[in-house]
């Protein structure tokens, strides 16, 4: 049965598609886009099937090369993997569709082939991370996706993108180096690379400084990748200077992958026994996250460039997820993991909107957005929905995250975190409302020459509408993701 091999096919398919797109692109560069879109669509279908199977029959394991773990590499897909995998692929597909026309203005036409090949490789990388049960394999795929991400950030026409890409590369490589060191230390201490095996062996070694060091390296490395507040410095430039489709992609897919990897390492390798019972790490984690939420929002308020503002907002939103994980009770974690989906929907949509505004009018500075709603009504309406969701106003998904996080914080008796969550939604309101006010309630300066206005192509509009609709629909049908998440949380915390 072919479906037994879906776990590996979901990773190999985009690889093969990438090689094929490279070959086909040499013949005609117009072939690349359909190959990429089709491959990701098939992947999405596969991932949905995997999700179905996981929901029905529990964890799926796949031994690569028929070697049993810990000797060979093992793929382990439980609900968390499947959930993240579906989100990643959905967003990848939408970004891919969106990129068809949006990159036309931002990337030289002869670079289209490379763009889609690297795009596919990035998708392959994140999928690899999402399904693997082997920490070194995780590192390899992390590197595939990272190198692809550096390249995509620098692929645009703006020269600042090059610098952003370079800084991203340096920070990313330091992070990868730290993760590699963490893996090395774990290997020294245990002699294995398999996550499940590690989780089994580690409890006996909790007192060893090697484990502590490995933990610190993992946390710092992953925090750089995820851009947790003081280590976020690469992020604003990278998100701002990248072509819009890439901003949408890395702000959702790549950052979510970092979050996923963090959760996986924390809860499936070190397990609750270490991070909650042995060391009070999660508490520190939560404080850092709370700080990130506030700092990210405050910095976002200070920005005038729309994409940059969204980038800082991402820093803050990553804090939400981490806070949920850091509070480490089941309700808050449900909120954190739910926010992986919610943030992907909202931020993907917002970056696409930013790209659409650039595409339609060439404007990127919020100060220039006066009267924008008259010129780009659809785009602005979509922005409005996604922004409401970011603020957390019902009926949008952002509210659900806020609800769970606040409830979790209340349950943990952490009133400061409650205050942080609630205050941050006010801060979010400040910077999103500014855009809204400019777009809807100001008239364009009369002395400005009427700029050209382009129609938004369907391939750009459709993904935005899908995401905005998702923002609203998942408020009403939040039970669907919750049905997946609640057992995940129970499983992650169950080790205690």
């Amino acid at each position, binding site marked *: 049965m072919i479906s037994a091999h879906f776990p590996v096919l979901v990773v190999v398919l985009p690889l093969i598609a990438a090689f094929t797109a490279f070959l086909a692109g040499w013949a005609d560069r117009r072939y690349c886009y359909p190959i990429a879109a089709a491959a990701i669509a098939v992947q999405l279908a596969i991932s949905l099937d995997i999700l179905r199977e996981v929901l029905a029959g529990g964890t799926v394991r796949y031994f690569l090369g028929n070697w049993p773990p810990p000797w060979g590499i093992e793929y382990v897909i439980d609900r968390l993997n499947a959930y993240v995998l579906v989100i990643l692929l959905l967003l990848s597909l939408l970004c891919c569709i969106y990129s068809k026309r949006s990159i036309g203005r931002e990337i030289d036409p002869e670079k289209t082939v490379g763009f889609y090949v690297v795009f596919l490789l990035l998708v392959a990388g994140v999928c690899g991370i999402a399904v693997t049960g082997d920490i070194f394999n995780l590192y390899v795929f992390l590197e595939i996706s990272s190198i*692809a991400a550096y390249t995509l950030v620098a692929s645009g026409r703006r020269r600042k993108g090059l610098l952003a890409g370079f800084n991203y590369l340096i920070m990313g490589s330091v992070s990868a180096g730290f993760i590699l060191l963490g893996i090395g*230390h774990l290997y020294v201490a245990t002699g294995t690379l398999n996550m499940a095996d590690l989780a089994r062996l580690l409890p006996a070694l909790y007192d060893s400084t090697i484990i502590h060091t490995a933990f610190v390296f993992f946390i710092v490395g992953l925090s750089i990748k995820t851009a947790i507040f003081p280590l976020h410095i690469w992020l604003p430039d990278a998100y701002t200077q990248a072509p819009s489709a890439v901003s949408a992609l890395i702000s959702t897919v790549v950052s979510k992958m970092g979050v996923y990897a963090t959760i996986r390492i924390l809860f499936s390798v070190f397990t609750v026994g270490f991070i909650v019972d042995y060391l009070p790490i999660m508490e520190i984690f939560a404080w850092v996250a709370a700080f990130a939420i506030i700092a990210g929002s405050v910095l976002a308020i200070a920005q005038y460039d729309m994409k940059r503002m969204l980038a800082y907002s991402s820093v803050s939103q990553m804090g939400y997820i981490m806070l949920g994980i850091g509070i480490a009770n089941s309700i808050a974690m449900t909120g954190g993991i739910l926010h992986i989906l919610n943030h992907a929907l909202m931020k993907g949509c917002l970056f696409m909107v930013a790209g659409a505004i650039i595409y339609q009018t060439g404007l990127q500075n919020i100060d220039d957005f006066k009267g924008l709603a008259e010129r780009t009504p659809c785009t602005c309406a979509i922005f409005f929905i996604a922004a409401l969701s970011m603020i957390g106003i019902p009926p949008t998904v952002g509210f659900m995250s806020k609800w769970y996080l606040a409830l979790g914080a209340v349950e943990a008796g952490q009133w400061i975190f409650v205050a942080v969550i609630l205050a941050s939604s006010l801060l979010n309101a400040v910077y999103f409302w500014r855009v809204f006010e400019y777009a809807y309630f100001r008239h364009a300066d009369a002395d400005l020459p009427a700029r050209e206005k382009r129609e938004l192509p369907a391939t750009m509009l459709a993904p935005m509408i899908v995401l905005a609709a998702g923002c609203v629909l998942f408020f009403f049908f939040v039970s669907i993701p919750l049905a997946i998440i609640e057992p995940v949380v129970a499983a992650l915390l169950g080790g205690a």
Partner: protein
Amino acid sequence: MKKWALFAVIVVGALLLWAEGDIPPFGDPEAPAYNHVAPRYIEQGAEETGSVNLVTGILADYRGFDTLGETTVIFTAGIAVLLLLRRGGRL
């Protein structure tokens, strides 16, 4: 920047120097790294993979998928350089 660099270096250095005290000594045959997964590779590797060179055996067989990833990394780098640098031409 220099100050930050020094700070980072000192922190990382202190952490590592602190940690290395617990690492098994250099060349210790009792080290866990040598006694958990590795013995099977050494004892049965050649038999199971058909490669006398154990490194190749592990590389291309036990951990073959890592190697596929690795090759893909190289491929990615090639495309990346091409994407960044090449101008004109068909790609």
